[in-house]
């Protein structure tokens, strides 16, 4: 028994001051263990076998020779795997992706579909046996190419309405002094988190335990429990350290196949995806083809806005990349129409990837705004400020806070925007053309229901338990600061434990909602705990624990347009001889609510902007147009930005206060990428005078575009746009 003397009081709040990561020492010494690194006795190793055909069915799987190979324990496939329950809607409101519910039938809906799991004593044995497994297929014709006018495309909702509309678009376009009608495309992009998916499954005293790398332990727990028809309480999922997720680390083939194998073999089984396997098994950002039509008065005021986006999805799972959603928040017009459409192709299932919708959508709309600025002769920032809406353009709801203008003003000042000569293609330095560009950014500030357990320990310290996930966001540290302030103590007296489904349901690390959602739950529990402690004389040895659940509080929150905003600035150099584009500097100013830990928040915002550079210039997963299979699906074939591609990127923020939000946190995980690629692309135009509407802006595209631009310069005179013929940058 301990007397409840108050512990050391924090002299000032921990939130808002820079703190190094609480797990930092473990990460720099190699002590932090990720999912594939927890040792288990009698561990067996599973290796997934993926289809080599793009559409068809499995005729035979010849397991006998493989079962005779050294160390091989079993081969799981559709002929012997247990049947799973897949007809359900999961915690996040979506059905399971059949690519994760492995080995249920003989169908092959895309190349790289999981067809078998070979389990052996060692990883080397499993790999060799998996490679030796002969699978015969009956192949069928396939279609893997996304085209803008695919007649099979249909409007699809996903997490937002498929279509919105108001006003007479054609009439307003006809009445507009300046009209823009352009198509923008973004390619297939891969999450490429550094740690490939890994899970170890084992049965422990009648309970299934899965040590995994995921973005939400209770999410994966609930999916596994439902799929295997188990009571949720008999499944435990742990995920302590996660080597990046970016939307890709949910329920995937590795956990499901590991559970199947551990059940069949009665021993722990680990399944780790290879880097190449992640390309078809781990989700990806669908390519998009987007059409933007804008009509404006001579002063830049928008009369008409249409944004239509098309993405691909697999034949077995519908995923909407809601790129047209951006305009519903950003810009109003008398006639306003948006549509998100999908087409089902024989391709892997796409999924959420850092700023789903906003990342590709902001590229299109923010590049289009830049083109409109050019055609109206307005400064790109001024054009945006003139079109600042008073309320949600589609919802009509008020904004909880909208500090976009403040971001632009601060960014323009720091970037030196006022000195910018708006003319394109006039700044030359040696063999390089220089240019600057800007773009706006927004990302929703939402929250998901969460529970938290906060314990006042007998020694005067506090323990927080919440099934949060730190995928590199710094959530563990941020929550420590949040809890310390809520408990009116110092961070050193708070221990935050996360990544364990036994801590109860919680929001995933996704949608920039994690920290906001978890902080809400922790704050609520801490408040109640403080009330309890105020009337408690002693703390028993087991401590005093309070549990919170934010489900009701979330429902009570007033309906408003809640978003982060930002202004992105980039300066680029384009080598006219080689077509190489290098970003020279980048600045992002954000209005992202309350910043919990400036050290990690800045890092994360810069990380998002770095993704923007990578998206603008490098990333493109290539699919062979004939076989429909990935070409060079690895980190040499799929280029993400390296150190050398990322110059002095700077992120900062303006005050952003939302008076009726009990948390005030908006999240910084995704806003950094939004608009970043557009800022780079707009800078490339400013440098060269050529618009690039297809990402990434690779050297071959720069060279082809400049050749065509000089060849048809006379045709182009007066219009200010690249020609629409096959030689243009958009071909």
């Amino acid at each position, binding site marked *: 028994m301990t007397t409840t003397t108050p512990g050391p009081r924090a002299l000032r709040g921990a939130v808002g001051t820079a703190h190094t990561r609480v797990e930092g*020492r473990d*990460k*720099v010494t*190699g002590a932090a263990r*990720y999912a594939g690194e927890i040792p288990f006795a009698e561990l067996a190793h599973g290796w997934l076998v993926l289809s080599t055909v793009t559409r068809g069915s499995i005729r035979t799987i010849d397991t006998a020779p493989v079962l005779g190979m050294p160390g091989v324990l079993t081969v799981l496939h559709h002929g012997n795997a247990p049947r799973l329950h897949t007809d359900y809607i999961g915690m996040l409101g979506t059905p399971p992706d059949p690519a994760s519910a492995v080995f249920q039938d003989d169908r092959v809906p895309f190349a790289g579909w999981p067809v078998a799991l070979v389990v052996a004593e060692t990883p080397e044995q499993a790999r060799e046996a998996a490679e030796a497994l002969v699978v015969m297929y009956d192949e069928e014709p396939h279609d893997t190419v996304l085209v803008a006018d695919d007649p099979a495309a249909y409007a699809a909702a996903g997490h937002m309405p498929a279509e919105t509309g108001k006003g007479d678009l054609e009439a307003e376009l006809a009445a507009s002094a300046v009209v823009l009608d352009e198509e923008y495309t973004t390619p297939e992009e891969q999450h490429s988190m550094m*740690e490939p998916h890994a899970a170890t499954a084992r049965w422990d005293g009648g309970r299934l335990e899965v040590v995994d790398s995921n973005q939400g332990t209770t999410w994966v727990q609930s999916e596994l429990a439902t799929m295997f028809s188990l009571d949720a309480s008999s499944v435990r999922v742990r995920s302590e350290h*996660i*080597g990046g997720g970016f939307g890709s680390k949910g329920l995937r083939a590795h956990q499901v196949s590991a559970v199947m194998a551990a059940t069949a073999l009665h021993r722990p089984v680990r399944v780790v995806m290879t880097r190449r396997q992640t390309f078809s098994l781990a989700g990806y950002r669908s390519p998009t083809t987007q059409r933007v039509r804008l009509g404006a008065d001579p002063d830049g005021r928008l009369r008409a806005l249409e944004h239509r986006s098309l993405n691909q999805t697999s034949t077995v799972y519908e995923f909407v990349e809601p790129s047209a959603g951006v305009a519903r928040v950003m810009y109003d017009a008398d006639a306003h129409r948006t549509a998100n459409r999908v087409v089902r192709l024989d391709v892997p299932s796409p999924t959420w990837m850092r700023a789903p919708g906003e990342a590709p959508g902001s590229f299109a709309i923010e590049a289009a705004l830049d083109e409109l600025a050019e055609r109206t002769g307005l400064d790109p920032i001024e054009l945006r400020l003139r079109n600042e809406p008073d309320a949600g353009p589609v919802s009509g709801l008020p904004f909880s806070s909208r500090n976009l203008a403040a971001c632009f003003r601060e960014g323009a000042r720091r970037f030196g925007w006022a000195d910018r000569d708006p003319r394109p293609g006039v700044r030359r330095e040696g063999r390089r053309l220089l240019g600057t560009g800007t773009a706006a950014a927004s990302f929703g500030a939402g929250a998901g229901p969460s529970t938290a357990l906060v314990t006042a320990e007998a020694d005067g310290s506090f323990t927080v338990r919440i099934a949060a996930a730190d995928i590199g966001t710094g959530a563990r540290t941020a929550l420590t600061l949040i809890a310390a302030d809520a408990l009116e103590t110092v961070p050193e007296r708070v221990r935050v434990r996360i990544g364990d489904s036994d801590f109860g349901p919680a929001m995933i690390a996704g949608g920039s909602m994690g920290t906001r959602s978890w902080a809400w739950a922790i704050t609520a529990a801490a408040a109640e705990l403080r009330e309890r402690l105020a009337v408690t004389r002693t703390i028993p040895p087991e401590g005093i624990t309070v549990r919170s659940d934010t489900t009701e509080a979330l429902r009570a929150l007033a309906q408003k347009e809640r978003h982060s905003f930002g202004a992105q600035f980039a300066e680029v150099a384009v080598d006219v001889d080689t077509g190489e584009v290098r970003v020279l500097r980048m600045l992002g100013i954000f209005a992202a609510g309350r910043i919990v830990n400036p050290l990690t928040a800045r890092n994360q915002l810069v990380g998002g902007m770095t993704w923007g550079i990578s998206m603008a210039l490098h990333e493109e997963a290539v699919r062979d147009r004939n076989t429909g299979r990935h070409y060079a699906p690895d980190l040499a074939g799929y280029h993400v930005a*390296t150190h*050398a591609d990322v110059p002095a990127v700077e992120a900062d923020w303006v005050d952003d206060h939302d008076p009726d939000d009990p948390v005030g946190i908006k999240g910084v995980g995704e806003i950094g990428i939004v608009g970043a690629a557009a800022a780079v692309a707009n800078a490339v135009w400013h440098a060269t005078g050529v618009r690039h509407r297809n990402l990434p802006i690779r050297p071959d595209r720069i060279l082809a575009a400049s050749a065509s631009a000089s060849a048809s310069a006379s045709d182009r005179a007066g219009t200010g746009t690249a020609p629409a013929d096959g030689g243009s940058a958009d071909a």
Partner: protein
Amino acid sequence: MAPAPASTTSPITLHINDEKHHLSVDHRTTLLDALRERLDLTGTKKGCDQGQCGACTVLLDRRRVVSCLTLAVAAEGREITTIEGIADGDDLHPVQQAFLDLDGYQCGYCTPGQICSAIAVIEEHAAGWPSAVTDDVRPETPPLPLTPDEIRERMSGNLCRCGAYVSIVQAVARGAEAHEEARTAAVEEAAA
């Protein structure tokens, strides 16, 4: 002499972080897998297993290599340093401390490789090795400072998908300064 009969496994001794480890390896086992799966040295990370990301970087005879393309059997007889052997007991290496203080990471999965690589970069630069962004590679050129551009180029074999490059470069620069200060202090102490 008749050739020894073919075998597919070998007993080997690996010298890792000043310790000897005796084990029998399948020749297919990479140094990376031997560290992670056999010796419980899981600080060295597997990001791609193809030499394309740098997460598995270790020091072999004090030079940085990717352990995923190094066969364990071929590493016998060489001095191996992994992230677990970088700190001096509880005292972090200056590069480790700089990564911690300047938030030179996010998810942490590329971090051991970045740190091992950074330590080698500092030594390579000190040894006068030029890089692809070095203006003049001729040996008569006076030693160049380890500028941010030099750090970026030399560290480019270590991908960081979280995009923490900006703070990693700052951490490497600070680590290099601390390294230089320690070296100068050691020289002064020796002279005193």
